[in-house]
C-alpha cells in the first residue's frame, strides 16, 4: 500500500487463527498501524487480499470490517466521556423498540459484560470518571458487543502499569480460550512474550519473520526489529568519582495527591520513581515542576529554600520537565521543530526581547537537535510530522540545550520504538554524568531498573521504600503492591 511518497506496506502476508494471540512488532514507521488500518477498513489496500474465515472480503468503511467481526481498539480510546458505560458499549448498536431507545435492555446487557470481566463499576457510571484501565475494558466490551471474532489491539498496555497490564492480558487469555482471534501491537516485549502465541516482525513495510513464541527470544525479536544487534540497551553506570552535591531536597512535602514526601536528589545521579496506578508518582513529578504544586513542606534547591507554584518558577530555578503527554503538553504540533526546541527558552525570556537575542543564539539549538539525532527533512518542518520518537527527542533537546541542573521526566519512552528508547536512555545517562540530577517517573519496571542509580517506590501517594541499583524486580513489584496481591480496580 502506498501513500504519497512512501510505500507503507510491501507484500506483507499475515494470518491469525481463531483462539490464537498474534503479536505484531516493529519500529515506528514499520507499517504496523497501516496493516491494522487496512484490516479495520480505515484504509483500502492497493494490492493483495483480505480473507476472513477463508472468504475474500473488501472493506470500504470501518463499519464493514466490524460487520465481518473485526474490531479494532485504537490507542486513542474512542469512548464518550459524558455518556454512561452502557451508552458507550451500545454506541452505534443501540437497542430500540418502535424508534425509542430501550435503556433498560442496554443497561442489562452492559451489566452482563461488566460482570463477565469482573468489573467493580456499574453500567450507569459516566465513562469519563473511570481510570484508563477501566476504560480499556469498556472498549473491549464494546468491541465484543459487536460480535467481534477478531480483535485487533493497538498498544493496549502502553498506558498501564505492570499489574493492570497483567489483568488485561488475563482477559486476552480468556478471550483466546473462547475462540477469539487476537492481534496486538506492542512495544513491550515482556508482555508480548507473556501473552502471544505467535510474533510477527515488520520493518520498513516488509515482513521480516513470523515465529512461534517457543521458537524465538526477545533478543531475537529486537534484532529483527532494529536490523542489527542492539548492544548496550541500557547504558553502563559509571561513578565519575566526584562527590555529589545535593541538587533538590523535599521535606514533609505534600498536596492533595501526595503526602509525607522526603526526597533527596544529588548531582550525577538518575533516580527512578516506580509505582502502580494510584501511587501518584506522576503527581510527585508535577509537584516538583510546579504544575500541581506542593501545599505543605519545604523544597530546597542546592540548599536554598524556594517556592515553586508554577512551571515558570520551576524553570527559573533550574528544573526541566519532560511530560508524559507530549502531544497535549509538550509540543505545539504546527510550529517548527526549531521553535518547539526553543520553547522553554522563549517561555522565560522577556516578552519583547528579540527572537534572535544573544541568549537564544548561544543555546545553539541546531547543535542540540543534532546531538539528540532528531531525524527530520528540515528543522523548519512542523514538528507534528515527525515520528513519536523524534518528537520526544525534540522535547529532550529543548532541555538539553538549556542544561537545567534538575531534569524531571515522566514516562520518557512511552510509545517509542526500541532503538529510540535506547538512544534516550543513553542521553539521560550522559546528562546525569555531566553533573546534573535526573528524576525519571516510569511505569516500565525493567526500564526503571535498567537506568536508575536509585529506585524509589511509591504507593497511594507516599514514598514507601527505596532500592539501590541492581535490585530484583519481584521485590520492587511486591513493595509497590503492598505485599499483597491487591486487585487494582
Amino acid at each position, binding site marked *: 500500500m502506498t501513500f504519497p511518497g512512501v510505500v507503507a506496506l510491501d507484500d506483507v502476508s499475515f494470518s491469525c487463527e481463531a483462539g490464537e494471540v498474534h503479536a505484531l512488532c516493529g519500529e515506528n514507521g514499520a507499517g504496523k498501524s497501516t496493516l491494522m488500518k487496512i484490516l479495520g477498513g480505515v484504509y483500502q489496500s492497493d494490492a493483495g487480499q483480505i480473507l476472513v474465515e477463508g472468504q475474500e472480503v473488501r472493506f470500504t468503511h470501518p463499519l464493514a470490517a466490524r460487520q465481518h467481526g473485526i474490531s479494532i481498539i485504537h490507542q486513542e480510546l474512542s469512548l464518550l466521556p459524558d455518556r454512561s458505560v452502557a451508552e458507550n458499549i451500545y454506541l452505534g448498536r443501540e437497542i430500540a423498540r418502535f424508534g425509542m431507545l430501550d435503556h433498560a435492555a442496554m443497561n442489562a446487557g452492559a451489566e452482563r459484560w461488566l460482570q463477565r470481566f469482573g468489573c467493580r463499576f456499574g453500567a450507569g457510571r459516566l465513562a469519563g470518571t473511570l481510570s484508563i484501565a477501566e476504560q480499556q475494558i469498556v472498549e473491549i466490551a464494546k468491541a465484543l458487543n459487536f460480535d467481534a471474532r477478531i480483535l485487533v489491539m493497538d498498544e493496549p498496555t502502553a498506558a498501564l502499569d505492570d499489574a493492570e497490564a497483567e489483568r488485561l492480558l488475563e482477559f486476552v487469555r480468556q478471550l483466546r480460550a473462547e475462540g477469539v482471534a487476537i492481534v496486538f501491537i506492542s512495544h513491550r516485549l515482556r508482555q508480548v512474550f507473556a501473552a502471544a502465541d505467535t510474533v510477527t516482525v515488520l520493518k520498513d513495510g516488509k515482513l521480516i519473520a513470523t515465529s512461534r513464541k517457543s521458537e524465538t527470544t526477545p533478543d531475537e525479536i529486537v534484532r529483527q526489529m532494529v536490523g542489527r544487534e542492539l548492544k548496550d540497551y541500557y547504558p553502563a553506570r559509571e561513578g565519575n568519582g566526584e562527590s555529589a552535591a545535593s541538587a533538590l531536597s523535599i521535606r514533609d512535602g505534600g498536596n492533595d495527591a501526595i503526602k509525607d514526601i522526603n526526597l533527596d536528589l544529588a548531582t550525577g545521579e538518575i533516580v527512578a520513581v516506580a509505582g502502580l496506578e494510584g501511587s501518584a508518582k506522576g503527581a510527585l513529578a508535577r509537584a516538583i515542576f510546579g504544575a500541581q504544586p506542593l501545599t505543605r513542606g519545604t523544597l530546597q534547591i542546592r540548599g536554598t529554600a524556594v517556592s515553586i507554584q508554577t512551571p515558570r518558577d520551576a524553570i527559573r530555578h533550574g528544573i526541566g520537565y519532560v511530560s508524559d503527554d507530549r502531544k497535549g503538553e*509538550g509540543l505545539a504540533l504546527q510550529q517548527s521543530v526549531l521553535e518547539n526546541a526553543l520553547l522553554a527558552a522563549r517561555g522565560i525570556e522577556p516578552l*519583547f526581547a528579540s527572537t534572535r537575542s544573544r541568549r537564544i543564539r548561544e543555546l545553539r539549538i541546531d547543535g542540540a537537535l543534532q546531538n539528540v539525532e532528531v531525524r527530520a527533512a528540515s528543522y523548519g518542518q512542523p514538528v507534528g510530522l515527525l515520528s513519536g520518537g523524534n518528537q520526544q527527542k525534540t522535547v529532550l533537546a529543548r532541555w538539553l540545550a538549556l542544561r537545567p541542573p534538575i531534569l524531571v521526566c515522566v514516562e520518557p519512552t512511552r510509545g517509542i520504538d526500541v532503538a529510540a528508547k535506547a538512544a534516550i536512555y543513553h542521553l539521560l545517562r550522559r546528562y546525569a554524568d555531566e553533573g546534573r540530577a535526573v528524576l525519571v517517573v516510569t511505569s516500565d519496571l525493567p526500564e526503571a531498573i535498567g537506568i536508575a542509580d536509585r529506585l524509589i517506590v511509591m504507593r497511594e501517594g507516599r514514598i514507601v521504600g527505596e532500592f539501590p541499583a541492581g535490585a530484583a524486580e519481584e521485590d520492587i513489584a511486591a513493595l509497590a503492591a503492598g505485599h499483597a496481591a491487591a486487585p487494582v480496580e
Partner: protein
Amino acid sequence: MSVSAASVTRFDPLRLLRRIHPAYFALVVLLGIVTIYNPSFLTPTGIMNFLRRAAPLCIVSIGEMFVLVSGGFDLSLGSLITLTVMGSALMINNDPGLTWGAIAAVYAIGMASGLFNGLVVSYLKVPSIIVTLGALLSLKGIALAWSGGSPQGYLPDNFRQFGRMTLTDIPVLQVLPVAVIVLVIAVALCAWVFHGTTFGRLVLITGDNPRAAEVAGARVRGIRIVAFIISALSAVTAGILLGGFAGPAQDVGDGYELQAIAANVLGGTQLLGGRGSVAGVVAGALTLTALFMVLNFMGLPKPLRDAVQGAILVIAVAYSVRRRKWG
C-alpha cells in the same frame, strides 16, 4: 514515520507558485480590474489614495490577527471604532485644543476594553466569542447612550487631519496621505512585534497548544491579554482615521470586525490559532478593499456588498482548508 533528510534540489516553478498565497494573486487581479474601471488608478496619486482608503481596514486586520493567532476571536472591534469616533466628536465638540486630550482618552478607553476582554477570557474562562459579542453590544450601547442616539459633536480639522490630510509635492510618490504614514508605522511596528520578538512566537504557540506554552513557562494569560489590547488599540487607531474621512456616524464601525476576519483568512491566518503573517494580512486587507471598490463600481448596493463579504469568508476558509490538506 521518519522523513529522510532530502532536499529539494530541482527548481520546480509550479511548486513555488503554489506556495505563494492566493491572496497575492487575487490582489493583482483585482487591481487590474480596478484599473479598467478607473485608468488613473495606476498612478502614484491613485495608489496612494487607494492605500489611504485601505488603511483603517489594514490596521484593524493586523490587530485582529494577534487575537486570532492566539486562538480567539475579537468581535468587538467594529463597535470600538464607532465608540472612538462618536466619543471623540462629543469630547472635542469643535474645540481644537481638546483634540490631543480626546485622542489620549479614546486610547485609554481602547486599552480598558482590550484589558477587559483579555481578563474575562483568561481568568473567567468565558469563550472569546461570547465576551467580544457582548462587548460588541455594550460598546455600541455606550456610544449610543452617550450621544443620545444620533451623531453629536463635531470633529475639528486637527483631528481629521489624520484621515484626510495629504502631503503634496513629494518626489516620486507625488502625494503622501498622513493616513498612509500611520499605516506604514502601524504595519512596521506590528511586524516587528509579531515576527521579531519573543512575544510574537509565544502568541503562535499559545494558539497552537496553550498547555504546552504554559508548561514551558510562558505566561499564557498575560499573552492573551496583550493580544486583546493590541487589537483594541488598532481599532482605536483605525477609528481616528475613519473619523477623519467621514465624521461621526453611528454605523461607522459596523461590520469592521468581520471584514478584519475576512482579511485575515484571505491572508493565510489560521482560525483557532497557530499560524499567521503580517504581510499576508495586509495583502488580504488590500484585496478586500480592492474588491469592494470593484463592487462599488459595478453599482452593487451596500447590503449586497455585505452578502458578497459573507460568501468570500466562507470560500476563503474552505479554500485554505483544502490547501492545508495538500500542503
